[in-house]
C-alpha cells in the first residue's frame, strides 16, 4: 500500500512516500508551495523509483495553516487523486504534530494562530493521543485561560508562536514547531478513514471556514 503524503500548511512544503507506514523518501523545502509542491512530488517519485501509477493513496494536510498553502495543497492532492482514481485521506496538521510527541503527565493541547486574535486548537487525552478529544477555533484569550488551568499540560504550537502570552507556562510544558514531522503525518494518516471519489471531488480544506474570510471581507 503505497502512500503519497503532501503538506503545504505551514512555512515548509513537504512531499513524502511511505509503504505501509514505513517512510521510503521525503522532500522538504522552505516556502513557496505554489511553485514547488508538484516539482517536489515529481523529483521524489523519481528518487524512490516509483511511477505515479503505483500510488494507492494520497494523504494531504487540510489545516490549520496558511490559506493560500492549503488551497494549493488540497487542490494538488484532489486532482492527482481524481486522475489516478485513488482515495485520499485528510490529515489535521495538529494531529500530525501530536502523533510523535509523547507526553504522559497530562493532556496535550495543540494550537495554531488563526489570525485576528483567534487560535485553532485540538485537545488530546494523556497518551496514546490520537484521536483528539475536541478541536475548534476560539478566541486565543479564552483558550489560554483554559489551558493554563489544566494540570501539567503539554502545549504544542504549530507555526508562529504565541509564547509571550503563555509565559506562565514552564518551559518543559511548551514546544513550538515550524515543520510538521513526516512520521507524525504518516501516523495521523493511518488513523483516518479514506474518502471516496465523490468526497474527493468535493474536498475543501476543513479549516478554511468562509466565516473567517468574511470577518475582514475586502472586495476587489
Amino acid at each position, binding site marked *: 500500500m503505497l502512500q503519497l503524503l503532501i503538506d503545504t500548511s505551514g512555512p515548509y512544503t513537504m512531499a513524502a512516500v511511505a509503504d505501509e507506514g514505513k517512510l521510503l523518501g521525503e522532500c522538504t523545502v522552505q516556502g*513557496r508551495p*505554489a*511553485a*514547488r*509542491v*508538484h*516539482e517536489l*512530488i*515529481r523529483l521524489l517519485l523519481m528518487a524512490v523509483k516509483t511511477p*505515479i501509477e503505483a500510488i494507492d493513496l494520497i494523504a494531504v494536510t487540510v489545516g490549520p495553516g496558511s*490559506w*493560500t498553502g492549503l*488551497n*494549493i*495543497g*488540497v*487542490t*494538488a*492532492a*484532489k*486532482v*492527482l487523486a*481524481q*486522475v*489516478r482514481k485513488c482515495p485520499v485521506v485528510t490529515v489535521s496538521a495538529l494531529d500530525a504534530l501530536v502523533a510523535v510527541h509523547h507526553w504522559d503527565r497530562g493532556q496535550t493541547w495543540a494550537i495554531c494562530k488563526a489570525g485576528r486574535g483567534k487560535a485553532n486548537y485540538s485537545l488530546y487525552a494523556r497518551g496514546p493521543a490520537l484521536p483528539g478529544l475536541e478541536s475548534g477555533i476560539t478566541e486565543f484569550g479564552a483558550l489560554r485561560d483554559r489551558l493554563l488551568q489544566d494540570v501539567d499540560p503539554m502545549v504544542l504550537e504549530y507555526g508562529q508562536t504565541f509564547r509571550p502570552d503563555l509565559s506562565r507556562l514552564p518551559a518543559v510544558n511548551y514546544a513550538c514547531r515550524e515543520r510538521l514531522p513526516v512520521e507524525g503525518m504518516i501516523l495521523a494518516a493511518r488513523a483516518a478513514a479514506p474518502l471516496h471519489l465523490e468526497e*474527493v*471531488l*468535493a*474536498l*475543501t*480544506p476543513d479549516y*478554511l471556514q*468562509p466565516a*473567517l*474570510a*468574511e470577518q475582514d*471581507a*475586502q*472586495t*476587489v
Partner: protein
Amino acid sequence: MLILGIDTSCDDTSAGVVDSGHTVRSNVIASQYAAHARFGGIVPMIAAREHTQRISYIIQSALDDAQIGFGDLDAVAVAHHQGLLLSLVVGVSAAKSVALACDIPLIGMHHLEGHIYSNLMGRQHELPFPFLCLTVAGGHTLLLKVTAHSRYELLGFTRDDAAGEVFDKLARTLGLGFPGGPAVEKLAAEGNPQAYEFPRPLINQPNFEFSFSGLKTAVIQAVERDPQANAADVCASFQQAVIDLLVTKTIRVAKAHGLTRIALAGGVALNGPLRVALQRECEALNYRMFVPPRDLCMDNGAMMAGAGYFLYRLRGGDPLTIEARANAPLGQLGIRYRPESKYN
C-alpha cells in the same frame, strides 16, 4: 491535439476542451456570484476556497461534455498570469496535477492571451496577422496590434479605470447587483442615451489613451445627487459614453496604423450596442470586425485551451515550477501596460 484549458483568474471556475486550437469540444463555467453577492464585490479569500471546492467537478464536466477521459488529453493549459493571486494558484495547482498525473505538457499563459485568442479560434485563416484587438474587460482596456502569435504592440491603454470596472461600479451604486455589465446593458435598453450629457474624457485628444474615471465620477454623482433619477436613462447615457469612447479611439488607432481588421475581446465585448456601434463604423470604412462567440468572451477555460495550442506550438511546454503572478508582462515581447511598481 486535445488540450484541457483551465481559468480561475478571478471569480469564475472554468475548464474546457479544445481540439487543435479550433474546435471547442466543451466549455464549462461555474460562476461564484452567489458566494460574493452580499459583499457587493469579490472577496479573494472566499474566491480561492470556492475554486478549490469546485475545480475537480468543473474539470470532470469539461471531460464528460467532450466525451473523453484524462488519458485522451495531449496537454493542459492554464492562466497563471494576471488576476487575483489567491484565485490563480488554485487553477495552476490543478493544471500541474493533471500534467504530472497524465505525463503531458503544461502550458502556462497570460489570462489576456486567452481573451485575445478567442478571436482566432475556429477561424485562424479568416483573421490573418496583423490585426487590431480591443481588449476590454473587468481589469483592462487595451488596444493591441497583434503582429504574430504571442507578439503584441501596445497602441493604447487606460490611464485609470477599466471600462468593465465602471459598469460594475455603476451597477453597484444603482443596486443592480454583480456583475454590472449585463444588468446595466439590460436597463439601458429601456432608457434614453441622450438624457444625460456625461463627459467623454480625452475623446478629442489626438492620442490613443482611454480614461474612464471622470465619466465614472460624473455618473455616480448624477445618481447620488438625484435619487429619483431615471436609472434606465442613466444607464443608457453612460453606456453611450463608453461606446463613443471605445469606438472613437479604436477607429482612430486603426486608421493611424493602417489596420483594417479589428477584433473585440474580453467581458465587455458581450455588450450588444458596443458590437453594433463598432460594426457600423467598420462597415463605413470597409474594415472587417471580429467578435468571439458569447461563451468565449467571458472568462472561460476553452479560450485558454485554444490559446494554449498556438503557444505550445510556438514555444513548447513549461516546467512544473511556473508560478502564478497577479500582474505580468504580456506575450513574447513582454508588453507592460501597468505602472512599473505593479510588476515587482
